[in-house]
């Protein structure tokens, strides 16, 4: 019984992870300029590994494999933002201009705002 539940939760995690990966990839192609695309890469590099590793950990239980998976996740979460920051900083110092949206055109009034 409990095993089935764990299996189902792990499936959901894996599939959601894959879905977030694709969303990040889509953003990498669709978003307008370099700096916004960094955020899309962020989606593909944070939640996607997080969910997939969680799904795999649920599969294997407590073992050496789990420990190494968690280590991989830690390394990824440690290095990914550093690499992103290094690229962003280099681009900014090199004079790549971020395109800026103006607040006036922001559709805040009609939109139901959900504060987190």
């Amino acid at each position: 019984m409990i095993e089935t539940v764990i299996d189902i939760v792990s499936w959901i995690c894996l599939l959601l992870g894959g879905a977030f990966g694709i969303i990040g990839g889509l953003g990498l192609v669709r978003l307008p300029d370099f700096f916004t695309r960094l955020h899309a890469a962020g989606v593909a590099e944070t939640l996607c590994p997080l969910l997939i590793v969680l799904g795999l950990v649920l599969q294997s239980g407590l073992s050496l494999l789990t420990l190494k998976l968690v280590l991989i996740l830690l390394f990824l979460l440690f290095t990914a933002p550093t690499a992103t920051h290094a690229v962003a900083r280099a681009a900014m110092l090199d004079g790549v201009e971020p395109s800026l949206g103006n607040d006036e055109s922001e559709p805040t009034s009609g939109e139901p705002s959900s504060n987190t």
Partner: protein
Amino acid sequence: MTLVMVVTTMAIFATMALALVRALKGPTIYDRINAVNVFGTKTVLIIALITYITGHADLIDVALVYALINFIAVVTVLKLAKTRDLASSADVADGAVEHD
């Protein structure tokens, strides 16, 4: 179970394809480096998934190594693209990088 993992692997392959599109399109070199960084992260995940699909627990070491090497590769390419000089400790390039 294996089916779900294969589907996830396919989803990650799709992400890699999208990243590759961005890497080919550019337009700045930083776009390409960023796309390659995403590509490398996805490779790590694929190796981890293959470990589970095939049941060879040893393969996870490969994923761990790749996670480390990917970071160094991105830093190296970034430095080479930016300063055209791997030996210096300085960050600021005197020559500008051409945009293609």
